[in-house]
């Protein structure tokens, strides 16, 4: 069972120590530009007739005789969207990358819900295959977990750009878009992320890969079967080809990290052989949320 009682305890523990993950400076800090009825002081402005006297700064008036009005930043709840890759390539590895992806998604969603943020999950492969609508409150976590557990790997042509195109057209508030995927997208992952950025979403990448994908060991005459497309390719894998593969894979990984760095996006790259709580803690440490 992917989400058991022990998992929930770990979520609670993570939520207690990570209040500031989404309010922190790394994942995303989004405060509304609107000034309003918040409690956090922003600045002063000249009093104009009709303004609410309750916001007058009487101390300044007493000292200097100027009528200034105190302005407060109005807080609003954060919208966190999880774009979860459910393509069949995510089923690769032992444990499958998909398991870690769902666990991380659940953990981050729980933390966000505990912080009274709004959380939505969009499961996709070649298209959006399931949607957990925006929700709020810790009590919704069980529904979310059930949703995640019911997800199945499917699809034969992952295309993040096409998914994001339909995602951004939704009438919804902008917010944090956490993409949890291996990013093995033949059409390129950059187009989808570019689209998110352009539509003022704050993308954050969590890229998961299997060590066997990074350092394959097979040699000789082999039929390579693409688990996503079921396509077969007869190849002769030599040591030289392995070296070249490693170079290409490392280049791809560096490209993902470079993309995040270039646009100031949060980017977490991991293998599937780590515990989700370790991964979340690592992210929180990187964000400075915990020591």
């Amino acid at each position: 069972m992917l989400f058991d009682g022990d998992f929930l305890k770990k979520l609670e523990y993570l939520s207690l120590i990570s209040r500031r993950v989404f309010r922190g400076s790394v994942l995303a800090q989004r405060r509304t530009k609107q000034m309003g009825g918040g409690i956090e002081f922003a600045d002063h402005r000249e009093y104009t007739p009709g303004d609410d006297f309750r916001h007058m700064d009487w101390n300044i008036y007493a000292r200097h005789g100027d009528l200034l009005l105190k302005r407060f930043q109005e807080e609003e709840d954060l919208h966190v969207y999880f774009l979860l890759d459910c393509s069949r390539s995510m089923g690769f590895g032992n444990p499958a990358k998909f398991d870690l992806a769902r666990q991380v998604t659940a953990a981050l969603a729980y933390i966000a819900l505990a912080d009274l943020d709004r959380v939505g999950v969009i499961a996709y492969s070649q298209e959006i295959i399931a949607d957990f609508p925006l929700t709020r409150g810790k009590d919704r976590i069980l529904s979310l977990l059930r949703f995640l557990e019911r997800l199945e790997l499917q699809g034969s042509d992952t295309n993040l750009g096409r998914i994001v195109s339909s995602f951004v057209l939704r009438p919804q508030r902008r917010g944090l878009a956490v993409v949890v995927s291996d990013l093995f997208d033949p059409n390129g992952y950059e187009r989808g992320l570019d689209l998110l950025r352009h539509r003022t979403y704050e993308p954050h990448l969590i890229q998961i890969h299997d060590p066997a994908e990074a350092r394959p060991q097979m040699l000789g005459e082999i039929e390579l079967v693409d688990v996503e497309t079921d396509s077969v390719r007869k190849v002769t894998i030599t040591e030289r080809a392995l070296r070249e593969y490693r170079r290409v894979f490392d280049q791809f990984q560096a490209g993902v990290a470079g993309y995040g760095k270039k646009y100031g996006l949060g980017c977490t790259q991991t293998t599937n052989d780590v515990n989700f709580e370790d991964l979340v803690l690592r992210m929180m440490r990187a964000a400075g949320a915990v020591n």
Partner: protein
Amino acid sequence: MQFDSPSSLGWLALAVPIVVFYILKIRLRRQPVSTVMFWTQVLDEQNPRSIWQRLRHLVSLLLQLAMLLFLALALADPFFSWEVRSARRIVAVIDNSASMNSTDVKPSRLADAKRQAEQLIAGMRHRDEIALVAAGTQPQVIVGFTSRQKTVRNAVQFMSATDGPSHVSEAVALGRRLLGERQDGKQQEVIVFTDGRFDGVENLSSPVPVANDAEAPASGEALAQAPVKLQIIGTRTANLGITQFQVRRSLVDPLGYEILAEVTNASDQAVECRLEVELNGEAIDVVPLKLDAAGKWSQVFEKTSASGGHLFARLNYEDTLVADNTASAVLPRREVQPVVLVTSGNLFLQKVFEVNPLVKLTVVAEAPATIPAGTVVVYHRVTPEKIPPGLAFVIDPANTSDLFEVGEPIANPIVTRQDKDSPLMSHVRLDNVLMPEARQLTPTFLDQTQVLAEAVTKEPLFFAVNRPEGRVLVLTVNLDKGDLPLRTAFPITVANALHWFAGNKGDLRESLAAGSLATVTSNDFVRPAKGQTLVLRSPAGELMPLPASSDRMTIGPLDQCGLWTILEESAGNSPAELTSPELKSETAIPLLEIACNLASATETDVRPPEELLEVKTNVSPIMAGLGSRPLWFWLLLLGLILTTVEWAMYQRRVIS
């Protein structure tokens, strides 16, 4: 083509699984991957598959089948019929006698002979057989007939040089006997690697006449037909050598000794050199020599020494054979012998002991109560009723004792028989000596008694008693009335007696010629205690165990020049100390030393016969070519080459 082991062709059945596995291998292993996008990027950068790449699996199958075919054929051991017809059986005789140590051919004649023998071995064809016989000191079969080159080559390499005489003729006869034992139609041959310095060389290369005797052994024909080829090694180099070096005791001086030295010039030119004679490292004589071509020089040196030691003669002349430039001899130490003369007075008897420098004489009128061990007591006339234990010399006994009974006087006894073989009678003649009033003696213990001289009436006049308590000599001669004291036989008899009492200590052992056998008896040295072992140490320091319990043993052949030593091997002397080139006196005391010299004019003359040098090149080496290896070897080699090619192909397409 025929096969020695045709059943091994059954291994060809392995072709079936190879083909089956090949077919199975065509169905490639499926490997699921999360995406092929990286592999596509990698593989598309490589060259498109060539015709060779497409056919390489088929080529690999053909290579594997060819490997199997070659290996199975190799196991079946194929051969051609001409191989059997042209097979040879060769006896290689290597002369490792002293003259083969000559260095006129670098590094030595023997090394060159071994090198040429190895060439012969390397030229052996498959199914050829070769045996190796050593012809130095003693003809010896080193390796019997074998077709395994490595065995014979190792035997050749480990064949050691000796200083012994050459026995090539005997070795060839031995080789011919070996060939005669096998009659299977192979070509037979005896090839001798020698310098030609041996007796009968002129007759050796000619075939032995076929025996007409109907009773000749079946191998007689083979003996006659096996041709002998001589491979002469060496040049007609000059050599000078000591061909005689012997030492003996002086007949007139107990401390004196005489050295016989002979030097031979085995060259075609006159030679000048020096012969130096040393005793314990101190020069005692130096003789300048001038020898004509093929000349000889000999001389006897008379010297005196009581301390004894090692005698060495050295020629200060550099030539190609070192072994005969030095000769050695062992001169035992002369021990002073205490003698107690119990007599009422006889000047002759007293003086005959006094003049002997090796005698410490004490003259007493009555027999002493105690006699120190090793002391010879001479009883003149007065004889105790029981001869005390120890060494006793009874002269002219007047009364009966436990060893003999004194009878009536014999008027004029004439010695008609004396034991010439006894050392007591060495250089002694008593047949014309007057012995009036000699007493009739009847020995009590006949089994212990050895009569040395007896009268015509069979009465013993001089006899020895070998009793367990000590040796006793009895001489019944009236010294006052006979003429024995006036004869030279008298001091010689007394000297022989003292020497006999001393147990032959100080006996000179003649220097042996290299290659001789030596006989050692229990009298030659003190036997070691029980549990201790005897070893024979060669001049080079090699140790050979000897039986400790045997009273008489033959050691040898002593095939190295120098001093051979019999040592007692005990906890005090470790093998490492015993085998060191210089044996320290505090490490081990030699029980017996035997000098061994080349002492052979034949070996000293290292010049090969001229007529043999002319035909030297006629002995052609056997050329091997490809035929030196069996067919299975080449098949196996082909199989290995194909294995290597297949391995390289596998590496190329899979690993690298």
